[in-house]
């Protein structure tokens, strides 16, 4: 068999695998969409009907014309962007030093930082509330974004260290010979090379923040401050009529900005950092 033939065969295999994966991951989402386009009467049919007899976009319309839905979305984007950005900024130097230096207690410190992520947020809920109350920071976005940031640090440090580790030291040594300071080396040599890693760390932080429920739930009870992850429950209300279809529509709409942000930011970050590398 020729090389080209093998490649063709491999392409086919890639397509087959991709299609199977897409089907497996999309099926549950389609059920969510199925709920989102139902009338209240058809919601109670549950799994008994996949394609509604009377599909409707009214649910989406109701969510999109809700006067505060946009505010909830904005709050969500603001909190997780701030959190992700902050976490990345403070984590870069830490990850760099963990990757490039060996100093006493380094691994203990790495583990220590990771411990933050291990403590169950369920139990932290009450102490966190009391702490922020003492600081007078309840009902502020600053406190919530700060906690998002802190929660993003362990993940960022670990991920960035792994991507720094993958970059050959020889490149940096060359820069150092050229008279670059350590910070300069990091900024102009290492960071551009670590662009994919940084982009993924940022995106992971962002998306983890997007689904964060407990922190904003306990710190923010004023409606105007709530991110969509908490406020989505506002659409879950009715004792007699079903609101499941609205909830499903709200979930579908909520996903869109997150995905859009993901696609946009991924390219933006990678290209910005790589452009920097070319200029540097």
């Amino acid at each position, binding site marked *: 068999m020729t090389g080209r033939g093998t490649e063709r065969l491999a392409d086919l295999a890639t397509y087959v695998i991709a299609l199977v994966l897409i089907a497996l991951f999309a099926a549950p989402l389609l059920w969510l969409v199925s709920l989102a386009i139902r009338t209240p009467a058809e919601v109670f049919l*549950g799994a008994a009907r996949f394609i509604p007899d009377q599909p409707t976009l009214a649910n989406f319309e109701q969510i999109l014309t809700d006067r505060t839905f946009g505010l909830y979305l904005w709050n969500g984007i603001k909190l997780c962007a701030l959190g992700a950005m902050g976490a990345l900024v403070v984590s870069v130097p*830490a990850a760099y030093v963990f990757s490039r230096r060996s100093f006493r207690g380094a691994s203990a*410190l790495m583990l220590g930082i990771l411990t933050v992520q291990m403590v169950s947020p369920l*139990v932290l809920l*009450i102490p966190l509330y009391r702490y922020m109350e003492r600081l007078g920071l309840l009902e502020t976005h600053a406190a919530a974004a700060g906690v998002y940031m802190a929660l993003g640090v362990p993940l960022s440090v670990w991920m960035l260290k792994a991507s720094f580790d993958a970059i050959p030291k020889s490149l940096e040594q060359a820069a150092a010979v050229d008279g670059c300071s350590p910070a300069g080396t990091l900024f102009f040599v290492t960071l551009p090379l670590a662009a994919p890693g940084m982009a993924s760390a940022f995106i992971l932080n962002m998306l983890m923040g997007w689904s964060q429920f407990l922190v904003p739930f306990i710190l923010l009870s004023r409606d105007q401050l709530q991110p969509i992850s908490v406020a989505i429950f506002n659409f879950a209300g009715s004792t007699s009529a079903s609101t499941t279809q609205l*909830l499903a529509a709200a*979930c579908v709409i909520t996903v869109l900005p997150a*995905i859009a942000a993901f*696609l946009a930011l991924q390219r933006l970050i990678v290209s910005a950092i790589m452009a920097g590398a070319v200029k540097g």
Partner: protein
Amino acid sequence: MTMSDTPVAAQKAPRRPKRARPAAWPWLAPALLMLGAFYLVPILDVLRLAFGDATLLRSVESYGLEGIQQTLSSPALPGVLWVTVVFTAASVIGILATGMLVALTVVRGEMRGLWGMSALRTVVLTAWVVPGIANGLIWQMLFSEAPFGALNSTLAVFGIAPVRWLSDPSNAMVSAAIANVWQGTAFAMIVFYAARKGLSQDLYAAAAIDGAGPFARFLFITLPQMRAAILVATVLVTIQTLNTFDVILALTGGGPGRATEVLSLFTFNTVFYNFDLSGGSALALILVLIALLLTVVYIRLLGDRPDQDK
């Protein structure tokens, strides 16, 4: 450090030999300050509560080891720990394997300019950002054992007998893990995708010349080269899975019986059903210990070997 020490330290610094590296702490300071300012006090508070007898109704009245002892001797705990082990192992393996498969498929497809790769990435990612509240809605319908349940009706088309997805205790565990893998794969995919993208193509070109097949290339180039990323993904996915309970809560509530009650859900029940804040804190500490232990094991297995490092 006391005030009087500072000037001494400052004086000493310039006298260091030039090739000595500057201290590590200024690099670490921002991250540590951030953690300290927002998170340290609450975490220490959890530690304090674990050794007390606080409930949601009252603050700690006395400290001691009794609370921890009672928590550890709870007859339900061994079963809960076993469920946690099974669920975590199944989820982590499932998430890592699926994440790797998706990442490598996408990378290969992109290199060959194949169509549909960003669709695959996006759909996997969407599963992750779907709000937790939707999980219950979706998977309840899929796993429904009613005659019209989504999965069972699909199986029926192929002549397969209905499966007791949720009402059978051991199946319920598998179902919960499937739902969790569905949601969690994106994380591993992103990490692996970035790591694989960072690998030099030269390695593969050289291997191809040596006549290595795709499986050999995966085994001898991709896996070893991505070791750091695999370590990070394994550690983080494990920690996340250990702390996951919302998927299970929405799907089975931990049942039937305690068949799917993982440690984090047990903690949830202890705090919110039993109002036992101290007991919950003690359980949270157990969870931290398990996570730390696993992390150390992972580092031993997957971490840098000292001879390669320096």
